[in-house]
């Protein structure tokens, strides 16, 4: 860690946000009580697909305290469909189903009442006449010619089908002596924050202002509300000082906000929609990728992987949110940390009669990493080579950075071999093998799991343009404004919500570092959307890089201004002025200086002492474009994406009781390199949380459906989140390879742990059961499924 070069960055400092949370004084959306607020409950479709023939509202409207029942026809007539990234005009997505409901749990009507309980009572009294329709749940079946169509007008269930070939794929395949095919499936899971989504909306018809308080992590939230409700964005005021109770990607909430925004405009009082867990799991922004991979790799006898063909089939659910793009983001790290020369990638996204999926931590990268890492293990297995050795042979070497991968992205920096060396130092890998063999000799099934992967970070989301050429966005920015007030105190702003990432601490630390002042003296505030500068929001593991970069440059501007004022007042050339902890002195005459208070006095009250042409006051701002950004795809389908690439290397040991099929993680070591760590406590927490989330995706979590199209995992009784019992102690070994593209050498860490844990666990389980002649390539690897698989294999062995 480079704390030695820094005053505050990388040092073990507390996270300023924590103080309000430990006393229960967070400011969550459900804590907001506006006077005269009415409450919304949702009515959902019980069928996998159905025509909505009639809605009888009479009984519900007659109940006490009930104000309104909104249906999809009224809402569709008054608002525009949600923005999507693809040009699929015949697949409109709306907050409430209009004419046809396309998944069990889809919102069909909204009831508004004095309390949430009364709204729920009335929701049950609504009589809806449905005509069930044919439905399709499976992505492969949705591709078939005779499949029911989820959206008749679209003419097929395919929303995206693009094939890319980067480099001489066929030539490399023809030349390679060995090939291997693998089918890998990532099950439908998600991030499932403990706080559901919530929104409070209040319309003031005299000011023409829609105030929105929401539990969001959503780019262009105010824009999308304004477009859908057909009001100017200057009439939409999103309050960013709302604490978000976890998100990790999913808290998009746009349909909720449009619904609540419409209702408050229609009814004239504030409206609040806080999902209950059922609404959240069935029809909120709750689901994540469900992806089937067919991968083929071409390699030689030494285990060097020359080329890869990957087909990824995504089951989007009934509508397209941002989800098809989750097939695009992994293109920026499609070869992982390996020197694979050429890649063919076919990305297919289909609609089915399941809940719509939304963005999840890593934006599609973790499933792709699973497919790639399973392949690397099978390459080693085929050749009888050690899987760690095969990875070492394929890794990009430190001296090969910056490294251009076939799909057009240039990796910034890394030292993968050294990270692996640190994790396996003191013979640890050999010791782990011995421990595995000892467990095996005791009758357990035991296996070692390895995964090495990258975390693209910084959020240069040019995959949008790659998948949809109509998109020409090449600017991804974030901003910071700093004001030193007339008393000399510093206030900085950030312009989005946070869901636990510690952004206020980030801004304070970076500004403190640059200005050489105690970060705790820097107040950090969040103006509302009308008073904000641009922010790309905390997606794409970007805030340390982007908000940190904006804060850094803003602070530099302030420092430059203070230095210029002092040099002018001291009558010395600018180059002769030295800034030190808020005081500027003459390099040649150190006792000749201007203190912070002197400079504030000049800037605020003594314009006659200011340099000519300089604005009075001490306010600066910086809008920061993403490093290495600004480009669009080339005609042959290549594009540079994210600026920075963090590296993680998982090494773990799993023991399985063959009678139960329950995997237990016995040892877990992680090597992690995210460049300079601005706050080590935050980095560690994010990484541990990512591993826990990855354990869930690998072993426990799945939005499972019955054959009838009913979601059967819709509570925490059936959708199993890892508790403290399921997450083992993890030893994290840090390494630091600074990024050359960022202000402090930092990279992203918001998705760390999660990107490799599922692959490592799947590899460990496969290592454990390989002696039985079986393998498992579908996540989650649930205990019952694994137990049955082992039992039937053991039966064959006995026979």
């Amino acid at each position, binding site marked *: 860690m480079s704390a030695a070069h820094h005053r505050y960055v990388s040092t073990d400092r*507390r*996270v300023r*946000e*924590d*103080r*309000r*949370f*430990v*006393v*229960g*004084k*967070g400011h*969550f959306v*459900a*804590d907001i009580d506006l006077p005269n607020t009415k409450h919304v409950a949702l009515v959902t479709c019980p069928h996998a697909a159905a025509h909505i023939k009639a809605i009888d509202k009479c009984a519900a409207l007659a109940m006490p305290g009930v104000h309104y029942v909104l249906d999809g026809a009224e809402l569709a007539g008054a608002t525009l469909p949600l923005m999507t990234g693809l040009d699929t005009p015949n697949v409109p997505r709306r907050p409430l189903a209009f004419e046809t409901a396309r998944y069990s749990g889809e919102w069909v009507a909204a009831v508004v009442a004095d309390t949430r*309980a009364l709204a729920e009572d009335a929701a049950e009294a609504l009589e809806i006449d449905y005509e069930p329709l044919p439905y399709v749940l499976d992505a492969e079946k949705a591709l078939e010619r005779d499949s029911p169509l989820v959206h008749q007008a679209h003419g097929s269930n395919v929303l995206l089908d693009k094939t890319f070939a980067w480099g001489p794929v066929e030539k490399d395949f023809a030349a390679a002596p060995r090939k291997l095919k693998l089918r890998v499936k990532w099950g439908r899971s998600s*991030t*499932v*924050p*403990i*706080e*559901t989504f919530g929104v409070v909306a209040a319309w003031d018809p005299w000011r023409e202002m829609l105030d929105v308080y929401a539990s969001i992590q959503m780019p262009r939230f105010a824009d999308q509300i304004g477009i859908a409700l057909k009001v100017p964005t200057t009439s939409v005021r999103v309050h960013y000082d709302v*604490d*978000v*109770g*976890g*998100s*990790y990607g999913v808290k998009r909430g746009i349909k909720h906000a449009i619904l609540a925004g419409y209702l408050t405009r229609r009814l004239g009082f504030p409206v609040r929609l*806080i999902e*209950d*867990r059922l609404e959240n799991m069935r029809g909120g922004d709750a689901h994540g990728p469900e992806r089937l991979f067919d991968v083929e790799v071409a390699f030689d006898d030494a285990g060097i992987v020359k080329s890869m063909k990957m087909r990824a089939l995504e089951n989007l659910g009934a509508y397209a949110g941002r989800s098809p793009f989750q097939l695009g983001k992994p293109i920026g790290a499609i070869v992982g940390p390996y020197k694979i020369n050429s890649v063919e990638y076919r990305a297919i996204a289909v609609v089915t009669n399941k809940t719509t999926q939304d963005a999840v931590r890593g934006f599609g990268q973790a499933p792709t990493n699973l497919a790639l890492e399973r392949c690397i293990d099978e390459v080693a297995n085929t050749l009888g080579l050690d899987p760690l050795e095969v990875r070492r042979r394929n890794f990009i070497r430190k001296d090969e950075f910056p490294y251009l991968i076939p799909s057009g992205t240039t990796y910034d920096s890394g030292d993968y071999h050294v990270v692996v060396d640190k994790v396996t130092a003191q013979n640890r890998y050999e010791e782990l093998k011995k421990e595995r063999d000892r467990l095996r000799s005791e009758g357990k099934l035991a296996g070692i799991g390895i995964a090495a992967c990258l975390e693209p970070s910084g959020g240069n989301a040019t995959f949008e343009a790659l998948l949809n050429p109509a998109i020409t966005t090449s600017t991804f920015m974030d901003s910071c404004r700093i004001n030193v007030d007339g008393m000399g105190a510093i206030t900085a702003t950030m312009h989005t919500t946070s*869901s*636990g*990432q*510690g952004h206020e601490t980030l801004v304070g630390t970076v500004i403190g570092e640059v200005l050489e002042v105690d970060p705790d003296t820097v107040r950090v505030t969040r103006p509302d959307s009308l008073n904000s500068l641009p922010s790309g929001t905390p997606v794409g593991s970007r805030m340390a890089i982007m908000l940190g970069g904006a804060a850094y440059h803003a602070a530099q501007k302030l420092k430059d201004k203070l230095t210029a004022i002092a040099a002018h007042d001291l009558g010395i050339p600018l180059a002769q002025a030295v800034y030190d902890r808020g005081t500027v002195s003459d390099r040649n005459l150190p006792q000749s200086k201007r203190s912070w208070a002197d400079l504030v006095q000049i800037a605020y009250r003594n314009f006659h002492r200011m340099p000519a042409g300089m604005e009075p006051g001490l306010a600066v701002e910086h809008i920061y474009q993403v490093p290495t950004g600004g480009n669009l795809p080339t005609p042959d389908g290549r594009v540079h994406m994210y600026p920075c690439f963090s590296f993680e290397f998982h090494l773990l040991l799993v023991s399985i009781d063959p009678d139960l099929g329950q995997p237990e993680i016995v040892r877990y070591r992680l090597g992690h390199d995210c460049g300079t760590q601005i706050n080590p*406590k*935050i980095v*560690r*927490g*994010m990484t*541990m*949380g*990512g*591993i*826990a*989330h990855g354990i869930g995706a690998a072993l426990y979590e799945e939005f499972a459906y019955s054959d009838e199209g009913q979601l059967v995992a819709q*509570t*925490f*009784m059936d959708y199993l*989140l890892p*508790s*403290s*019992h399921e*997450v083992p*102690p*993890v030893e994290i070994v840090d390494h630091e390879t600074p990024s050359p593209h960022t202000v402090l050498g930092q990279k992203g860490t918001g998705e760390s*742990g999660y990107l490799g844990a599922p692959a490592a666990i799947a590899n460990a389980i496969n290592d454990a059961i390989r002696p039985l002649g079986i393998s498992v390539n579908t996540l989650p690897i649930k205990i019952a499924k694994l137990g049955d698989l082992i039992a039937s294999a053991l039966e064959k062995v006995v026979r």
Partner: protein
Amino acid sequence: MRIELDINGEKRTVEADPRTTLLDCLRDNLGLKGAHAGCEHGVCGACTVLCDGVAVRSCLMFAPQAEGSAITTIEGLTPGPGELSVIQDAFCETHGMQCGYCTPAMIVAAHALLANNPQPTRDEIVEAISGNLCRCTGYAQIVEAISLAAERMRGVNRPREQR
């Protein structure tokens, strides 16, 4: 109906429907927003409060059922304006949280543990918080916070050499 409650050592009277959960009563009738709704079916533990010193889920209890019991919420465990308890401070020291949504309940659970077990093992801490789901942290820094709090509480009012 009229419900008489003992909340954080104070007698409080509220008018509420008999079906009002203790959680909704605390949040909506009494303005105590520190207990949070997560699942409302008794699994996530975000609504945890102390009922006669025992950690319970306030979403699974009707407010009238709390009559006659001493209810303690996170607000009652906070020493005073701007002040933190030893456990709260330990959570800040280890950064045993991220989004803060499960945090008050996690601290209530930790309080219940440490009130009865001043020197818990790692397994005992893990067991004590196993009914409180956290989606952010992977629990490591929470376990460390409770362990640190236990260590500090054992040291309170004892000569240094005996700690």
